[in-house]
């Protein structure tokens, strides 16, 4: 076969494989292929080389793309990412080199400490003292209840039982309107059957009150006297500060942690309460169970907070709901009744007076809450 002829055949094969043949030529060529194995082999050879070249084309395109990706890498970013790996490497190296030593040292130390503590019997005490959680300040009467039950059990063998509901706990509240509205802690009265207020500064005073408003989130409750014998508290001397106070401000409380009114003083030690709670202050006043709901006053006799709880296991750490939050909560929740239930003078009438005089004037507006 001459080269020209071979070239013509090859051109045909090329057109056939590349799909450049017209229908008639294509069919004729297919027929020829079926009959001519040599031609069929030539087509297969062409096809193979063509496939090789296609593969090469794909790969080169991919390589070009990868080079473009590579060129697009920001060298600064790359350095930063590399640094992360290097640092990790250093750390791993350090750990693998020194970990056995550290581990041995640590276990020796641990064993020493534990055995010492164990011998001294400290472990038990430590467990107990470390339970530093928020404990609400209601007077737990469980022990007393148990005692009463025991004596009752003894007595019941001899005498018929008397029917009185057990008193659950006590706290403090303070008046905010002449007509008988008072503020206290919601947790005291949340599940109460009945609530009474009493005062040791006005012997014989005892009124029945009802929950007028309660908010679990802020632990704020408003009580209203429902007794028909009640007339008025008279003019209230203190007011409620609508803003917040500064760190270190000297403050004091009047409360009923026992069956008598008790004075306590301290200062604002943090602008946030338990675990960073922003609606409360941390105050450094020794508070006891029964302090819940008692007012916190500043020097001029403005109420700046309501005692809500203390941190058990830490002395002198107590929390008070901010007066600003009290005001905002009531304003948002009870906008229509606000004037009625919130009836305090615009300015404290106690500013500039001696503390003893202040206490004398405010004590008649602070009451013991008894919950049954």
């Amino acid at each position, binding site marked *: 076969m001459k080269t020209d002829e071979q070239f013509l055949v*090859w051109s045909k094969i090329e057109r056939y494989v590349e799909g450049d043949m017209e229908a008639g030529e294509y069919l004729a060529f297919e027929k020829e292929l079926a009959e001519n194995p040599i031609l069929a082999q030539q087509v297969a050879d062409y096809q193979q*080389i063509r496939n*090789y070249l296609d593969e*090469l084309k794909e*790969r080169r395109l991919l390589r070009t793309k990868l080079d473009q*990706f*590579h060129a697009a890498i920001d060298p600064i970013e*790359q350095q930063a990412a590399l640094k992360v790996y290097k640092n990790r*490497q250093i750390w791993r190296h350090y750990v693998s080199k020194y970990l056995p030593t550290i581990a041995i040292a640590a276990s020796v130390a641990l064993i020493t400490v534990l055995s010492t503590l164990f011998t001294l019997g400290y472990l038990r005490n430590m467990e107990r003292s470390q339970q530093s959680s928020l404990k609400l300040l209601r007077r737990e009467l469980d022990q007393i209840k148990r005692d009463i039950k025991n004596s009752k059990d003894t007595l019941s063998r001899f005498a018929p039982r008397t029917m009185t509901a057990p008193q659950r706990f006590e706290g403090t509240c303070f008046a905010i309107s002449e007509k008988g509205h008072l503020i206290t802690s919601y947790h005291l009265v949340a599940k109460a059957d009945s609530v009474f207020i009493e005062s040791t500064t006005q012997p014989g005073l005892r009124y029945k009150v009802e929950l007028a408003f309660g908010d679990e989130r802020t632990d704020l409750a408003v009580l209203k006297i429902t007794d028909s014998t009640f007339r008025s508290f008279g003019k209230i001397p203190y007011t409620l500060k609508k803003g917040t106070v500064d760190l270190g401000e000297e403050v004091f409380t009047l409360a009923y942690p026992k069956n008598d009114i008790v004075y306590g003083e301290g200062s604002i030690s943090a602008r946030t309460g338990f675990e960073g709670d922003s609606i409360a202050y941390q105050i450094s006043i020794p508070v006891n169970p029964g302090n819940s709901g008692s007012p916190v006053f500043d020097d001029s006799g403005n109420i700046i907070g309501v005692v809500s709880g203390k941190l058990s296991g830490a002395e002198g750490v107590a929390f008070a709901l901010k007066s600003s939050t009290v005001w905002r909560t009531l304003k948002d929740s009870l906008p229509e009744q606000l004037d009625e239930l919130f009836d305090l003078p615009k300015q404290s009438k106690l500013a500039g007076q001696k503390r003893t005089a202040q206490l004398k004037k405010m004590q008649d507006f602070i009451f013991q809450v008894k919950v049954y």
Partner: protein
Amino acid sequence: MERVMKRTALLNEETFIKALRENDEAVMSRLYKLHFPMVLHLVVLNNGTEDEAKDVYQEAFIVLYENVQRPDFQLRCSIKTFLYSVSRNHWLKRLQAKKIKTDLKDIEEFIPFVEDSVSIEREARLVMVESAMQRLGEPCRTILEDYYLHEMSMAEIAEKMGYTNADNAKTQKYKCFNRLKKIINELK
């Protein structure tokens, strides 16, 4: 908004796989950038240069890319681990070829990754065809590359190479094709 969505979507492995399948260059570029520092650190830590790291990483990226194109392929680990494992193998091979004996210091977890026969044959074929093209010499190499790889028309090639017409160029291409065939048969 669209931009934000695209960014968060990038964190997803499936999105990367999809991008590789669909040749989404923007996403592929991000994937490339994401894991290069890892391989760069590996290679540099084990007596290599940045250029060598680039080569090894691109080889691994190609293995990933080509595996993902297969419909039956299932990635059994994260893309990161895959790229690391393949890069690591390739770097070990290069170190062996350089006759450098070293305990490879690893910086990541890896899976024992063995490339399958399909990939190995393809790589061997590509090396063979590439060297055949080199041996072909000019003007054949340019003519075949322009026609088959760059998809230029015969008229364009005739003009570029200085042939009087497309038919002359075609005859030349035929000769070149035959020569390539011959070289490939010798190399096989």
